[in-house]
């Protein structure tokens, strides 16, 4: 074979092969990752990709999902043109229309609804990704609607809420400097390889690792202590640890005396959670609870690595995580170097060590000049603690009831109806809308219910701003032109703003001018960023300070770290919320509903991560699917399988009183006996159908995805 042919076959870039390496980022998962991509482009087409070495988020590597980007970008399900529905909802019958017709139809309808019902009757929803969220939120508010919603209604927000109730400002683990990391509960080896690499580095310098996880994972395999908690009992485990820390006087007495509120009541409350009681409630042996408590409290500094959603996907989630984060206060590990350090966010939920005007940009109209967001009466703590958006779980009830005002139109960017428990209820409620628009890359089942579908492009076809926690920043440029007749989400938002006739100077100035405006306090400009297609380190990174509470106190009602929440105290009467981080078992559990547990003896835990999937975003790709060929399959302990007479890949029915799904059995020792793990969002086996629409944490509105009761039968 000739040398040139060999180089082409090996996809070696250079002038000989006319293969050019162009820069972009991966946004299949989001945020705080956004790995840099080196795209091998030949004749305008990507023929291969790998991680950018200069991007500190990934240093040349990629995760399994990111490595599959080519099949994501060139997927045959990509929507090719704007579409108007011609058949019944769900039929998938559409006719192509022009961008002009699509955008004008949407803008005219929105303005008509605004005139007749008020701007609040139009809602704006964001699924993945997150880069366009500030612009979409601004679009909603500049239009006059308070109803900007997102998938963060089931992700991250409740974790942040739990921390805010305790500390006022959330604090992330200072991985570089901590000497004891308590991962509660997550598996970064599947979800955040950068964090996993930091854990390995930490261990090399002697960092202790405690991992709370109902599964055995690559993270638990590296742990000094793995606490194999029963799903939904994390609060009891944290309270039992507090019991040990307090009674053995391992807590930070100076911090507790001077900077906390409600300690005496908390101390009294945790007395009932002896290590033995903890073992009974959580399944974690009492000696391990004692060891973990001693290790976390005595190795300084210690940090807690929370996950966005694992703990708050329980009907008792916020209280459980409050109990966990209270440990950081109790041991004086909040907002210190090597502990849980509060770091300001720069853009799209990511810290970037630069000041920006993002918050001002996205809140183009103050809440006080708009009517209350949907769900305000039902989830008052949400409204008080989550400044950004409305709780989207309320959407079906809101559409149906029309109270306190009707919802008439909804535009979703990457909306997936399977995100809602009792998903069909949400889907059917959409029928009541006068206009439902969905913007997506792929013709999803949700798109099939839309009146108008708009084709979005992928990250490598657009331009987006991203900040990274290590003080890195990128404003990407399209590596290839948008495929077919697709456009970037931001272009769609700015086009809509124009056609809605919004009197908004920044929408009128355009996208790049808006980015310049947002970045203005940092001194970084779009022009400068364009000179660094692979991104750059920010010139003057903010110095992170610890113990910011020393000046001006905590951003809580008491001005102190709150073992007893003054926010929740207000709702004790009407809503029955408890000011202490009390433990109550999951709504459906052996403890709460023993009769139900007789017939439905298994705990059903949905959505715990598999390495090759992030939600449903890589289901379409044969590369990722080939790594889990029996998908949809539920993970079940071989111990349970033996009892039920199940072999690998046997067909099983998982049912709750609500509904049932049929999947394969995947036997693995990764899961504990008595718990079934089922990945979410599968088109033929949507596990969220097994949950009732109101199976929610009343504090946050988050669904109890990770603990309900089910039974399993071989069929």
């Amino acid at each position, binding site marked *: 074979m000739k040398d040139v042919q*060999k180089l082409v076959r*090996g996809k*070696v870039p*250079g002038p000989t092969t006319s293969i050019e390496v162009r820069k972009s980022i991966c946004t299949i998962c989001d945020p705080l990752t956004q790995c840099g991509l080196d795209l091998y482009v030949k004749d305008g087409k990507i023929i291969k990709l*790998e991680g950018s070495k200069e991007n500190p988020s990934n240093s040349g*590597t990629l995760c399994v999902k990111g490595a599959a980007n080519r099949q994501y970008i060139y997927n045959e399900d990509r929507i090719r043109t704007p579409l108007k529905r011609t058949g019944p909802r769900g039929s998938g019958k559409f006719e192509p229309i022009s961008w002009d017709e699509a955008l004008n139809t949407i803008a005219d309808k929105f303005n008509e609804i605004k005139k007749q019902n008020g701007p609040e009757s139009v809602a704006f929803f964001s699924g993945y990704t997150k880069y366009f969220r500030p612009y979409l939120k601004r679009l909603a508010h500049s239009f006059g609607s308070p109803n900007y919603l997102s998938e963060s209604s089931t992700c991250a927000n409740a974790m942040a809420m739990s921390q805010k109730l305790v500390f006022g400002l959330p604090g992330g683990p200072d991985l570089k400097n901590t000497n004891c990391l308590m991962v509660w509960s997550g598996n970064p*080896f*599947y979800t955040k390889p950068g964090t996993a690499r930091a854990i390995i580095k930490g261990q090399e310098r002697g960092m202790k690792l405690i991992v709370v996880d109902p599964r055995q994972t690559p993270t638990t395999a590296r742990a000094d202590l793995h606490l194999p908690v029963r799903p939904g009992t994390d609060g009891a485990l944290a309270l039992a640890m507090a019991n040990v820390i307090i009674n053995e006087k391992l807590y930070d007495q100076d911090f507790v005396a001077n900077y906390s509120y409600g300690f005496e009541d908390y101390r009294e409350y945790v007395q009932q959670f002896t290590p033995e009681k903890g073992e009974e409630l959580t399944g974690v042996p009492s000696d391990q609870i004692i060891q973990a408590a001693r290790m976390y409290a005595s190795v300084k500094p210690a940090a807690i690595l929370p996950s966005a959603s694992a703990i708050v996907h329980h009907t008792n989630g916020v209280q459980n995580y409050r109990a966990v984060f209270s440990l950081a206060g109790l041991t004086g590990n909040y907002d210190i170097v090597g502990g849980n350090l509060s770091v300001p966010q720069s853009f799209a939920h990511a810290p970037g060590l630069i000041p920006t005007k993002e918050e001002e940009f996205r809140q183009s109209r103050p809440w006080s000049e708009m009517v209350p967001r949907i769900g305000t009466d039902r989830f008052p703590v949400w409204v008080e603690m989550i400044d950004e958006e409305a709780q989207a779980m309320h959407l079906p009830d809101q559409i149906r009831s029309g109270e306190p005002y009707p919802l008439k139109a909804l535009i979703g960017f990457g909306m997936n109806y399977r995100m809602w428990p009792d998903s069909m209820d949400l889907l059917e409620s959409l029928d009541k809308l006068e206009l439902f628009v969905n913007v997506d890359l792929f013709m999803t089942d949700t798109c099939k219910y839309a009146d108008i579908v708009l084709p979005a492009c992928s990250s490598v076809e657009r331009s987006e701003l991203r900040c990274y926690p290590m003080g890195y920043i990128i404003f990407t440029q399209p590596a290839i032109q948008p495929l077919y007749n697709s456009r970037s989400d931001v272009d769609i938002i700015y086009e809509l703003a124009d056609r809605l006739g919004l009197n908004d100077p920044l929408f009128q100035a355009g996208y790049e001018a808006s980015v310049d405006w947002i970045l203005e306090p940092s001194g970084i400009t779009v022009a400068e960023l364009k000179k660094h297609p692979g991104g750059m380190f920010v010139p003057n990174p903010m110095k992170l300070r610890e113990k910011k509470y020393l000046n001006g106190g905590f951003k809580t009602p008491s001005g102190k770290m709150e073992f007893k929440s003054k926010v929740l105290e207000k709702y004790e009467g009407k809503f029955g919320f408890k000011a202490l981080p009390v433990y109550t078992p999951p709504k459906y559990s052996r403890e709460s509903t023993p009769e139900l547990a007789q017939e439905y003896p298994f705990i059903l835990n949905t959505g715990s991560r598999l390495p090759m999937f992030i939600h449903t975003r890589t289901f379409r790709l044969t590369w990722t699917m080939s790594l889990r060929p029996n998908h949809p399959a539920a993970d079940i302990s071989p111990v349970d399988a033996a009892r039920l007479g199940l072999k690998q890949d046997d067909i099983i029915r998982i049912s709750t009183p609500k509904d049932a799904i049929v999947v394969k059995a995947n036997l693995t020792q990764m899961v504990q006996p008595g718990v079934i793990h089922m990945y979410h969002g599968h088109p033929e086996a949507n596990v969220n159908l097994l949950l009732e629409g109101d199976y929610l944490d009343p504090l946050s509105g988050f669904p109890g995805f990770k603990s309900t009761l089910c039974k399993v039968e071989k069929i």
Partner: protein
Amino acid sequence: MEKAIYLEIDLCSGCGACAVACMDQNDIFPEKGQSALRRIYQIEEGEFPSASIQYVSAACLHCQDSPCVIGCPTGAISKSNRTGAVIVEKELCIGCHSCSLACPFGVPRYDLDEKMQKCNLCMERVEASLEPACVRVCPMNALKFESVNKVQREKELKFAGNIVNAVHKTAGHTTK
């Protein structure tokens, strides 16, 4: 043979990034019935919560004394002097499966054209001073492409460091 692919097994999390990067590099599409050249195995022993769960990323080991090379009746398989890669010349392969009988590791797979296909060490990339695709992608840096004996030397050095640390600790002081 200058360099070889090493798997640091304790770092492998079985994520499959290497398998996907290999399919991207070699244009392998499972929907067409093509087989991956690099595959992931999860080996479990014992019971939760103290089961041993290990992951292995496996592909051709490019043996120094390759049974498949000896076993091939048409001389389609050879070992490159420059890169050490064991490579198949498809034009010469007759699809007789002798190599699969000879290979102790179960590596050879047969493509849609019935001819043998396996990892070629990303030979073209390696000759252009680039890492094999699987090594480049590995998010845990569990896969390494290193000079022969270098990985062992590093492992040995680390072990030596641990011994020194242990000795210092028993003597009452630690090294960082």
